């Protein structure tokens, strides 16, 4: 008898293998529009209709024409094929005297806007570079991180190895001027716009140093820096590790591994780990998988599906069980690969999520180079957690919902059975057991009735929901009620200690 396992692929090939991609017309001014149209039609997760894309493109061009030249161009319902789109674009380009680059950009933006998918994006070559450096945690600048505090722009952190680190600037300095522009009274976004600039350009900064009560002037050059993707240390008072992951770039997994090795070398036996994925917008899936392998020996990472209903499993293999309880801090900025990792580690019972609901980006994109050096970031897949939890447009609801940024850390440590506490303010950060967190509001505030403290943090510290989570409460009554709660002042700073 004949084996018929060998017939499998034949019929299919007869149908589809030998179709050739049609050669592109050499003089087509709308090559990019065509490329985007083709990629979206062939591959976008939502299986869009051609008519919808054509309509979107024409409406967008029509709007631009109205806005720029007050030229009324009416979109016809008859136009619903790519051929008709090209004809209309050519006609309108002539009518309005527009250039082809603008026509392409408008048409592409219009097509993509119909997808209802903020993650499918057209990139110019420059935007593409920016996107990639973002994922790799690279940026051009002086090398400091800022925060807004009491209407001052304060240097929160200086990046090691940066131009700022080589200068006299220090943490806590207030930025007053960039070149001739005063930043006093300007918003954070406005100030940031003045500080921005191309790699290699210089600017003179004026800062005020409150501790020395004097102004300093410093000339700095903007440089390209790669920030570490994973940073962290052990919390004081106990043996819980803390790792914050900024992005899932190509070094993320190795840096995370090195942090864990560093913890393992310390004298103490770790009893828990806090992984901070707040405001981590994601990155490469391969990095997420490598990082997952630092937590589990093997297991399912996710399911992905595409427009054709093909479901693929992605597994973590040859990893290592972390062997200690893990808490992942999440918030509305926790997206994509961050949600993927959080969801998988939770489904496998390795981690609990603490914080607020995550962003809900359960889709995966691929960056496709286009002919002019531009690129299309295109949504190809939706993913689901190992328990088939839908992430897209929904987000993950944490196991422990905590709104306040600082209180999230406190709650995570509480659930890891941390009993000894020391909390303080430092340059606007809230320091929890030795690790500073960039909270928007300071921990303490001087009120009319004495020292006040962030309600949410106190509530989670004392496990007393009655305190509420609203702004600040006076500390004095709680000091009385809880003998283990103490406040000390050293050098003008307050320290709150507690043993639960």
């Amino acid at each position, binding site marked *: 008898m004949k084996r*018929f396992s060998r017939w499998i692929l034949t019929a299919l090939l007869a149908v589809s293998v030998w179709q050739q991609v049609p050669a592109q017309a050499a003089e087509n001014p709308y090559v990019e529009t065509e490329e985007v149209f083709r990629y979206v039609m062939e*591959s976008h997760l939502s299986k869009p209709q051609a008519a919808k894309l054509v309509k979107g493109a024409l409406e967008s061009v029509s709007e631009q024409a109205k806005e720029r030249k007050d030229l009324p161009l009416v979109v016809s319902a008859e136009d619903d094929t790519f051929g008709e789109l090209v004809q209309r674009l050519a006609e309108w380009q002539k009518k309005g005297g527009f250039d082809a680059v603008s026509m392409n950009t408008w048409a592409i933006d219009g097509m993509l806007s119909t997808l209802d998918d903020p993650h499918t994006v057209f990139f110019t070559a420059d935007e593409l570079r920016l996107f990639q450096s973002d994922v790799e945690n690279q940026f051009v600048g002086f090398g400091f991180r800022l925060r807004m505090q009491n209407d001052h722009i304060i240097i929160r952190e200086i990046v090691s190895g940066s131009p700022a680190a080589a200068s006299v600037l220090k943490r806590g300095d207030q930025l007053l001027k960039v070149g001739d522009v005063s930043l006093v009274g300007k918003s954070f976004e406005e100030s940031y716009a003045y500080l921005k600039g191309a790699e290699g350009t210089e600017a003179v900064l004026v800062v005020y140093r409150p501790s020395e009560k004097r102004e300093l002037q410093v000339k700095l050059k903007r440089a390209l820096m790669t920030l570490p993707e994973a940073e962290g240390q052990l919390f004081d008072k106990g043996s819980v590790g803390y790792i914050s992951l900024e992005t899932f770039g190509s070094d993320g997994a190795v840096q995370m591994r090195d942090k864990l090795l560093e913890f393992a070398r310390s004298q103490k036996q770790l009893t828990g780990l806090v992984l901070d994925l707040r405001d981590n917008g994601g990155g490469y899936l391969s990095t997420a998988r490598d990082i997952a392998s630092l937590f589990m020996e093997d297991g399912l990472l996710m399911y992905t599906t595409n427009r054709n209903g093909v479901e693929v499993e992605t597994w973590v293999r*040859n990893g290592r069980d972390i062997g200690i309880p893990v808490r992942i801090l999440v918030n509305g900025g926790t997206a994509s690969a961050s949600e993927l990792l959080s969801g998988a580690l939770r489904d496998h019972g390795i981690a609990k999520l603490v914080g607020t609901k995550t962003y809900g980006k359960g889709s995966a994109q691929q960056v*496709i180079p286009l002919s002019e050096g531009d690129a299309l970031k295109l949504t190809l*897949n939706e993913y689901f957690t190992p328990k088939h939890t839908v992430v897209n447009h929904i987000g993950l609801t944490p196991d422990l919902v905590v709104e306040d940024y600082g209180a999230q850390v406190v709650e995570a440590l509480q659930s890891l059975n941390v009993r000894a506490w020391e909390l303080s303010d430092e340059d606007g950060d809230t320091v929890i057991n030795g690790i500073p967190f960039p909270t928007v509001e300071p921990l303490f505030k001087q009120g009319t009735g004495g020292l006040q403290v962030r309600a949410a943090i106190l509530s989670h510290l004392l496990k007393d929901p009655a305190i509420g989570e609203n702004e600040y409460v006076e500390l004095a009554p709680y000091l009385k009620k809880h003998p283990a709660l103490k406040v000390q002042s050293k050098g003008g700073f307050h320290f709150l200690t507690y043993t639960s």
Partner: protein
Amino acid sequence: MQKLIRALSSGLLVAALLTPGVASAAGGFLPYSDISNHWAKASIIRGVQAGLFAAGTDAPHFYPNRDMSRAEFLALMDRLYNGGQYQLYPLTFLSEHAEWSKGEGFDQPYLPYKDVDRLTWVYNPTLRVAIVLDRLYGPNAIQQVFPGEEMKPDQPITQEEAAKLMQMFTMSPDSSKAWEEVKAWKWLEGDRTDKLKRGEAAAAADRMITYLVQDTILPLLDYDGTKFPMVPEIEELFPYFETYTAPKSKQEAAYVSAVDAIRNHEDSEATFELLRALADTTFANRIGLHFYLSWDPGTEISTNLDEAMSAIDAYFANKIILPDTLRLLSANVYDLALQQAGKDQKQFAKVLERLSAYEQKVKPNSKEWEALAIYLGALEIKSGQTEKALERYKQFSANNPEALLNACYYLYQEGRLEEASALLATVKPNASDSRMVQLGKLLRQELTSLQEQSAIVSDLGYSLRRLDNADSYQVQGEAVLSGFSFKYTQEIDQRSQVSRLNGFYQSPQKLVSDKLATYTDGSKHIQYSYDSEKQKWDRHSTNNLDFLHEWVGALPVAERANKLHARYFKQTFGEMEVITEWIPGSVLAEQSASLLLERGKVKDVPLFMNKYYIDKSTDRVVKHTWRYEEIYSSDEYVAYSGTDQYDYAKSIKLSIPEEVRKGVTP
């Protein structure tokens, strides 16, 4: 036209990958501070030059007397494999795709151990070695070397464990003899349980490099039909044929510049004009002038051939015996003959006649004669005079590797294995002639394997018949066909003659994969396949064959052996018997001439090989790997490779669902 001889010379690169650079071997530089008095110093240095060991400021010491860990040895094997992978290609079928441990399909391979983690330096080298072992010897073969859940990468490796890994570079037919095999090659010197020292590992690697850059592991295997008749590798392809020292005369300078241009692929019409102008003068280097004029791409090949012959005339006119020069000049003639004649025996005969005229000018059985005779033999083969060639090769096969290889190969082709063995028995090379010693040993092993062909055919036939007679079975497969990747599960119910396939495939022109779903009705010869674009089931007849490999796949093994001249090689590794099959493309093209294939007539078959993995305890085929390349008369090129794994455990009952038969949307 690009001369073949130039293309052929690039084959040297393969060896160059593993051959230490000459320049760096010269100085007295020591890569490590702790090896100056060590007995394996030379091997360690060669290992560094071959890229086997890292040296530099980060690695100031080699620690030659320390135990080598399992992980270190695996990394060493990985690097050796990387350099010598072409040697193993006919047994691994592993293309460059498989590099960097990505595997060839959708699923990334992984290790069967709990203590070798992804994000460690040990991981990728270990995984790559495991993939090669898997391919050579079947699923989880590395478990035969390091059994259990843990590999203990930091544990010192024993000599026997090392031997089990090193045997992959041998023709060892049985893993239980790995130790004896490796000892017979003298790669290791200690006892089984001795821990391998780092210095000893370096010495072993050095010996293996020497072995790998010589002959291929199966010297008589011509899996792609390009090896025989074998001619020697030419080391210096562009000599000046004279020594020129400064100051050079105007003519000398002109000649040297023309040769340099040809050597550097920068020749133009002017280059050859210049040579022709020199030929009209009394410039003395007539060999060089004629030789390089034969390289002129602007003239007819017959003219080039005349020039090549004139170069030989000039050689004999000089009356200086230089076998290397005569070898190059003869190679040049042979190369042009290959270009001119293609497959035309008569044309080869004509060239043979011209080249044979020089045989009387050399001393019989001298080095000079050998240089000429190896090409005369090749031309005799090409012109269909095998018997004459055999007689010629036998005359100098005792000390000439190519003559020995050719003699054995054509005796085997003629079915005269006994004669080949007898010839081999007369070869008693000097112990210092490592290439002849190695070749003799490899050939003896290979002739033994060739004598077992019918036994292997019957083993494989039995297991494949068992597959055909199984009531039902399941196949998990991954394949690549003309750039399309497939992953599928197929269930086969042989009682109802129905099979069902589910999976997905990825087109190289698309970004997203698509579903794959078919039902096959074997009794009615109908296949139903799901069209996900139209969302309905289509019907096709399976009466006609599309591809050559479908036809071959349906032939019983005995017929493949007899009719298609398939060659088999069997290796036993632990519980697995692995049978590799190579079918010569020329026979396939010939035998398939009368076939009516949907793809058209078969024009050429550059590659056709299969690997079957048979579980010794059940005699069942558990895995099948294949790699085919087929060219059809429309010039359509089809490359098909993949791996199927068979599971007989589940009982599968299948029928074609009503909605599929009616072609409706499921």
